[in-house]
C-alpha cells in the first residue's frame, strides 16, 4: 500500500516536472523564435524597472511606434501591390529575418523586422511589467511575503534616481512650461495625480492660497525660491501679454538675523533673472509708510500694534482707543509719521485741536490723566519698531518686497511689524480706483497724483517661518478676504504646530489652502496627510492564478488608505517635497534655481524708484522703452503723411 502510494507520488511529481519542463521549453522556443521582439521586451522591462517607470509609459512608447508600423505596412503593400495581404507582412518579415540570419545577414534581417518587432516588444514589456507591478501591489508577487515592501522601497529609490538625473540634465526642467505653468522639479512618484516627467503647477494655483511645511535643512527655501521665481516670471509674461495684472511679491521672512539677509540677497538675484526689476529689502534698504493708511484703518492698526490685556485692562484699552482716535482723527488730518503722532499724544495739543468739538473736548478732558501713559507705550513701541514703517515708500516702489522681521530675536516686535505690513498690503490691494488718497507732511489730506492704482494687480504674500508671528497675526482672516483683493497668501512653517497657536486656526489655514500643500520632511505630517484624503484599496484572500486570473474562493474587503504616506514624508530627502492637491499627491525632486552673480559693490540701491506704470492690459513689460524718438520726417518723406 505504502509502496503504491509512494509510486503514485513519484509519478505525480514526474508528471508535474514534465509539464513544467514542457512549459519552459515552449516559452523558450517562443522567445527564441520571436527573438527581436523578445530582446526589445526584455530591454523595456529592465529599463522600466531600473528607472521606476509606471507601466503606462511603455504602453505609450508602443503607441508612438504605431505610425512606424503603418508606414512599414504601407511601404510593403506598395512594393508588393497586394493590399489585401498587408496583414501578413509582419509574418513575412519575420520569416525573411530568419532566412537572412541563416545566410549570415543578421543585421539586414533585424533591420527588416524592426518596425514590427519594436512595438511588439514594447507591448510585451508593458504587459510583463504591469503584471509585475499589479502582483506586487496586490501582495501576491515575489518570493517572500515581504517582497512587495522590498519592491516598493527599491522602486522608490529607482524613481528618485531618475528624478535626480532629470533635474541634473541641462534644460530638462525649465522654470516655466509651455502654457506658463510653473515647473517645480521632476516627479518622483504620483498617486491620484497624472504621472508626468516634470511637476507643473498651473499659475492659477499660485494665485490661490498655499501652505508649505518643512523643517530646517530640508530644502524649503529652495522650493520657495522656485515657486516665487515661477510666479514672477509667469505673472510678468501674462502682464506683458495683456492677460494679467502687474505682479507684486511680498515676502515676510519672520526669522531674521544674518541668515535672512543671505536669503534676501539670493532672492534678489534669482528674481532679477526671473524678471523682477527692483527688489526692496525692508527695513535694511527700503521703508514703507504706515501713515498712508486711511484714518480709520490707521487707528485700528495702531491699537492692534499694542498688546491689550483682558479683564480690568479692558478699561485702559478703551482709554487708549479714545486717545488714539482723538490723535488720528483730529480736524487737521491724520499724522504723517510717528513723531507727529507722538507729538499729538498731549493733553494740550488734543484740547486745542478739538476746541471746536465739545464732545471730543469732553473726551480729552476725561482721558487727560492717561494720555501720558498712552504716549509712553507708543514711544516705546516706535522705538522698538524702528523707522521701517515711517516712510517714505509704498509697495508701488518695487516689484518684490523682502521684509525681514526679527522673529527669533524679538518676537513681540516681529509680531507688530507683521501686523502692520499685512494691514498695509491689504489696504494696498484693496485701494479703490482713481488717485490714491494720501496725506501731506504737514498733516493735510492731499490728492496723491503719483500713486498708481493696482486694482487688478496680482499679489502674492509669502510668509516664511510663520510660527514666529502666528500668535498675533491672524493670517486666516486675511486668507478669507484675500481672494476678492487679488491677493494670494502662501504660508510656510517648520511644522504643523507652527502654522497657528491653536488647532482650530491651523485647520482654518489648512482648510482654505486651495492652491495645495507642499510637504517637505517633517516629523508630524499626519494632520496634512489626513486632509489630503484617502483612496479605496482592496484586501483579499483570493489567490492570483496568474495573468489577472483569480480563484473564486476567498473573500475581498474594501478599505480606505491615505493618499499620502506619512512615512514617505517623514523619510523625504533634502530637496524632495510632496505636493498635495485635490486628493492626490506628487512627490517632487525640486530643481534648484540658480541665482545670478552677486552685484558688484557700488552705490546702495536707492528707493523709492519712479512710480510704476498703471497696470493696464497691454502695458509694456519692465525695461520697455518709452515713446520712441520721432521718425516722422523719414516716414513722411518716404511714405507720405
Amino acid at each position, binding site marked *: 500500500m505504502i509502496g503504491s502510494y509512494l509510486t503514485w507520488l513519484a509519478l505525480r511529481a514526474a508528471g508535474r516536472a514534465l509539464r513544467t519542463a514542457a512549459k519552459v521549453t515552449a516559452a523558450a522556443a517562443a522567445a527564441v523564435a520571436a527573438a527581436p521582439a523578445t530582446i526589445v521586451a526584455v530591454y523595456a522591462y529592465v529599463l522600466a524597472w531600473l528607472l521606476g517607470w509606471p507601466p503606462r509609459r511603455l504602453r505609450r512608447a508602443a503607441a508612438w511606434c504605431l505610425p512606424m508600423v503603418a508606414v512599414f505596412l504601407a511601404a510593403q503593400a506598395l512594393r508588393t501591390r497586394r493590399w489585401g495581404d498587408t496583414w501578413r507582412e509582419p509574418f513575412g518579415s519575420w520569416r525573411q529575418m530568419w532566412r537572412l540570419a541563416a545566410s549570415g545577414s543578421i543585421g539586414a534581417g533585424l533591420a527588416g523586422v524592426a518596425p514590427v518587432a519594436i512595438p511588439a516588444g514594447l507591448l510585451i514589456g508593458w504587459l510583463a511589467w504591469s503584471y509585475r507591478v499589479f502582483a506586487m501591489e496586490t501582495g501576491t508577487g515575489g518570493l517572500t511575503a515581504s517582497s512587495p515592501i522590498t519592491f516598493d522601497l527599491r522602486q522608490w529609490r529607482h524613481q528618485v534616481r531618475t528624478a535626480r538625473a532629470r533635474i541634473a540634465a541641462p534644460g530638462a526642467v*525649465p*522654470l*516655466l512650461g*509651455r502654457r506658463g505653468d510653473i515647473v517645480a522639479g521632476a516627479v518622483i512618484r504620483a498617486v491620484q495625480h497624472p504621472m508626468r516627467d516634470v511637476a507643473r503647477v498651473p499659475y492659477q494655483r499660485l494665485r490661490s492660497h498655499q501652505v508649505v511645511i518643512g523643517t530646517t535643512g530640508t530644502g524649503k527655501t529652495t522650493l520657495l525660491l522656485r515657486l516665487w521665481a515661477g510666479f514672477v*516670471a509667469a505673472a*510678468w*509674461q501674462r*502682464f*506683458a*501679454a*495683456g492677460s494679467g495684472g502687474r505682479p507684486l511679491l511680498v515676502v515676510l521672512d519672520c526669522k531674521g538675523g544674518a541668515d535672512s539677509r543671505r536669503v534676501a540677497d539670493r532672492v534678489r538675484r534669482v528674481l*532679477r*533673472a526671473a*524678471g*523682477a*526689476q527692483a527688489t526692496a529689502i525692508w527695513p535694511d534698504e527700503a521703508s514703507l509708510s504706515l501713515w498712508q493708511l486711511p484714518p480709520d484703518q490707521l487707528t485700528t492698526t495702531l491699537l492692534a500694534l499694542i498688546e491689550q490685556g483682558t479683564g480690568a485692562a479692558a478699561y485702559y484699552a478703551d482709554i487708549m482707543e479714545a486717545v488714539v482716535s482723538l490723535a488720528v482723527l483730529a480736524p487737521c488730518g491724520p499724522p504723517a509719521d510717528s513723531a507727529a503722532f507722538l507729538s499729538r499724544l498731549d493733553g494740550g495739543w488734543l484740547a486745542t485741536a478739538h476746541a471746536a468739538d465739545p464732545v471730543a473736548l469732553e473726551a480729552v478732558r476725561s482721558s487727560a490723566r492717561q494720555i501720558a501713559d498712552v504716549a509712553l507705550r507708543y514711544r516705546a513701541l516706535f522705538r522698538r519698531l524702528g523707522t521701517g514703517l515711517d516712510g517714505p515708500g509704498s509697495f508701488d516702489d518695487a516689484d518684490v518686497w523682502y521684509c525681514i522681521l526679527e522673529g527669533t530675536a524679538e518676537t513681540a516686535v516681529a509680531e507688530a511689524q507683521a501686523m502692520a505690513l499685512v494691514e498695509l498690503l491689504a489696504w494696498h490691494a484693496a485701494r479703490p480706483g482713481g488717485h490714491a488718497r494720501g496725506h501731506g507732511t504737514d498733516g493735510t489730506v492731499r490728492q496723491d497724483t503719483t500713486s498708481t492704482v493696482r486694482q487688478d494687480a496680482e499679489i502674492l504674500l509669502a510668509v516664511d517661518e510663520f510660527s514666529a508671528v502666528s500668535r498675533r497675526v491672524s493670517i486666516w482672516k486675511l486668507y478669507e478676504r484675500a481672494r476678492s483683493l487679488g491677493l494670494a497668501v502662501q504660508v510656510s512653517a517648520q511644522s504643523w504646530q507652527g502654522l497657528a497657536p491653536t488647532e482650530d486656526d491651523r485647520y482654518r489655514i489648512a482648510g482654505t489652502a486651495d492652491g495645495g500643500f507642499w510637504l517637505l520632511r517633517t516629523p508630524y505630517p499626519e494632520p496634512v496627510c489626513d486632509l489630503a484624503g484617502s483612496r479605496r484599496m482592496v484586501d483579499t484572500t483570493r489567490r492570483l492564478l496568474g495573468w489577472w486570473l483569480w480563484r473564486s474562493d476567498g473573500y475581498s474587503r474594501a478599505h480606505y488608505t491615505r493618499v499620502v504616506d506619512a512615512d514617505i514624508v517623514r523619510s523625504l530627502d533634502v530637496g524632495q517635497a510632496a505636493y498635495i492637491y485635490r486628493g492626490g499627491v506628487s512627490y517632487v525632486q525640486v530643481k534648484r534655481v540658480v541665482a545670478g552673480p552677486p552685484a558688484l559693490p557700488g552705490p546702495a540701491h536707492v528707493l523709492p524708484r519712479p512710480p510704476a*506704470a498703471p497696470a*493696464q*492690459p*497691454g*502695458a*509694456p*513689460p*519692465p*525695461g*520697455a*522703452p518709452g*515713446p*520712441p*524718438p*520721432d*521718425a516722422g520726417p*523719414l*516716414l513722411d*518723406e*518716404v*511714405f*507720405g*503723411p
Partner: protein
Amino acid sequence: MSAPGARRPPAAAASTTTLTRRDIAGLVFTAEMYGVQLDQLATVLSVSEQSARAAAARWRARGYADTARLGPGGPWCWLTRAGLTACGLHYTFAPPALSRLAHLRAVVAIRLALQASDTYLTAAAHWRSERELRARIGKVGAREHIPDGEVAWPDTANVPYAGECWAIEAELTAKTASRTVSIMRELLTRTGDYGCPAAERLRPSAPPLHARALYLCSSAARPTVLRARDALGPALGARIEVRGLPPGAHLEMPP
C-alpha cells in the same frame, strides 16, 4: 567642337559671362524677397526695364533664376535652387506663390522706397527680409508671427532712432482688429531674435526686439489697423506707425 570663329549660341555666351557686382546684388535681393517683378528688378539694378529683362535672361541661362508671367503685370523673376546655392543662401526653394504675388510686390515696393531715401543710405540701415527670418526660425517656430521685414538702424547712425530695429508690415487686406492687435502686441513685446530659444522670446526684463512697428496699409486695411493701434493702449500704441503704401506697391490689375 565648334570651329574657330563660329558664333556661340546666346545662352552659352551668357553662361560664360562674368557676373557683375550689380548682378550679384540683384540676385541676392531677388532671393531675399522670394521674387520680384521685372519693373522692380529694374529699380533694384538701377537700369531700364529692358536691361533688367536681359539680366534676368542671363541669370536664367546660368540656371540661377527662372522667369515667368505669373499674374497681372510684368513677368516675375525668382531664384532656382542652383541660384540660392550660388548665393550661399539656405532658403527653401519655392517660386512665388500665386496667392502672395500682391503681397510680395507691396513688400518689395516698401523696401525699395525706404532704400531710396537719403536717410536710409547715409545711416547704412539694413533690411532683413521675411524669408531670412523664416529661415532662422526653421519649422520649429512655425506658429510665431513673422513680420514682412525688419529694418535695423546701426548704433553709429546719425539719426534719432539709431540702434533701433523696426518691424515692417504690409497690410493690403483688413484682418480682424483682434488679430491685428494680437500681431502688434507680439511684435512689440518680443524680446528674443527670431530663432532664439523659446524661453528668450518674451523675457520681461529684456528690452523689446522691435522698437516700433511700421504698418504700410492699403486704404481698405487702414481703418482696422488704426482701430487696433488704439486698442493697444497709449504705451504700446505710441510705438506703431501707420502710413500708406508707396507708389507702385499695388499689383497691376487687368482692365
